[in-house]
């Protein structure tokens, strides 16, 4: 099995999110970057499949992805491909450059995260599947590799799932919770240093979208209960009592 995994070095939505001065982006100050949460599950899944069935795991990152690619190598990926282009919020461009960068790799399976934690497009995987014309399934919560094909359960609404069988090569986008991603070990970090991280230059092509404006959503806020923890507790109990809840 030759498995390609996409991994994005992405800003954590729980870091400090502020609109940049030009109103067209996010202020980099305060942002904490790490491997996109969904991609952590995808890389783990790929490594597990290789551990069971043999083969190779190649991790691909677009942008300033070194830390995340090194992390994936430390987790157990065999080699990494970096495409040093800033494709911003444009998933189409990202999918396009990945397609070009992997043109010479004869893969069996591509795994991507369901969505990126910063821009939440949930597009790169499906667009890539469309561009490559291969069978695909999204929001996958369980995978078993069989002879020349893969059995995948994908998540629907309300806790339901949908089981499908796809012939290889195929592309799956991975939903969180599919596995328990391993931690990076010291040994893993040491080993990663000797692994290949190759930079590939491809043409960025045209962009599909342009950011016009980034802004804070106007919302009506809850009535705040303030004070010391004890005062807050008392006020809240008052509210619950008024409503007959205690």
């Amino acid at each position, binding site marked *: 099995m030759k498995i390609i995994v996409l991994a994005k070095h992405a800003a954590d939505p729980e870091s400090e*999110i502020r609109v940049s001065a030009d109103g067209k982006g996010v202020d980099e100050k305060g942002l904490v970057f790490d491997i996109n949460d969904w991609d952590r599950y995808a890389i783990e899944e790929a490594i597990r499949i290789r551990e069971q069935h043999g083969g190779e795991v190649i991790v691909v990152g677009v942008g300033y992805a070194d830390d995340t690619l090194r992390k994936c190598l430390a987790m157990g990926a065999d080699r990494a491909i970096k495409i040093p282009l800033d494709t911003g*919020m444009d998933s189409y461009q990202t999918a396009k450059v990945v397609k070009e960068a992997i043109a010479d790799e004869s893969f069996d399976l591509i795994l991507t995260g369901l969505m990126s934690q910063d821009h939440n497009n949930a597009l790169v995987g499906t667009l890539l599947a469309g561009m490559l014309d291969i069978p695909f399934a999204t929001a996958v919560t369980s995978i078993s590799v069989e002879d020349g094909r893969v059995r995948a359960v994908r998540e629907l609404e309300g*806790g*339901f799932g*949908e089981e499908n069988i796809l012939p290889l090569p195929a592309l799956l986008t991975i939903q969180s919770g599919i596995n328990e991603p391993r931690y990076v070990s010291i040994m893993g970090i040491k080993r990663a240093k000797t692994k290949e991280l190759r930079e590939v230059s491809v043409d960025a092509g045209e962009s599909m*979208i342009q*950011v016009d404006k*980034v802004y804070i959503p106007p919302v009506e806020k809850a009535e705040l209960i303030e004070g010391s923890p004890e005062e807050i507790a008392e006020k809240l109990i008052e509210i619950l009592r008024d*409503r007959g809840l205690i």
Partner: protein
Amino acid sequence: MMRVFAIAEIGSEELDPVSIELLNLANAIKGDGTSEAVVIGDDVSSYAEELAKHADRVWKVEDSELKNYNPELYVDVLLQLFSKEKPDVVLVANSSRGAEYAPVLAVKLNAPVVTDIVGLDVSNGVRATRYIFQGKLLVDVLVREAETYVFTVRQGVFKDECTVQGEIVDSGIKPSAEVKREFVGIVEPEAGEVDISQADVVVSVGRGIDDASNIELAEELAEVLGGVVAGSRPVIDSGWLPKDRQVGISGKTVKPKLYLALGISGAFQHIMGMKDSELIVAVNKDPEAPIFGVAQYGIVGDIFDVVPALIEKLREIKG
């Protein structure tokens, strides 16, 4: 003259309300053009009639092979339809299914695609509005000029109805693609010991609970309040609570008398599962957390300060 197509979403044996919302948006932007619904399945007549109340035209695409959803067949029949009936805009629900096939449809139509939109303006170029950073920011994106645009649309946003009585057309289209992906079956959710959708009080914990060992704190609070403990997705993904305790779009929908959100940011997928609760109280240390947009009462603070104080005071009362 603009033609706006909305692809209907069929739930379990019924028309998903988001289908009408797609048509509401279509009617709002069509100008002197048309809103046209497409309904795909093995027997869609009753859905078509419902849709015709909200669309200028409804296209039926019927075949026994379309009984179960398959993205390859959906793309196939839609491409056949769109090769004759040229759409300017295609609207698809941002559901587990719509979000899967719409981007591939876009690739094949050579159309730009924007997902999970909450606003669309076609008056001067094409501008779509969507959330980023899990609901913390909004962005307006300008989409490159194209013959056709594809959008997946967030549910629950375009509620303003506009009644139009349209015609129903049998498209005569049959699936022609050789399917690679084979549908095996639907997997039912596992039933657990506690049904959180039946509880009057739900104490719900998010990633802010930080560690499996802290779940105990929520359990103590639930006990004194006579409620049950539930959680957001990361808590379930981490294995700190069983899957049947998950609140949200891919978990359960709850409408208790009291929903207490502890360390939950309030992502859309979570909100969808609890927004209709009678009383929502949120505790979060981030004053900007989107959860404060759906809560009636908010406490900006640390759950590890607030919750123990609350448990203590409640115990005092109960004696």
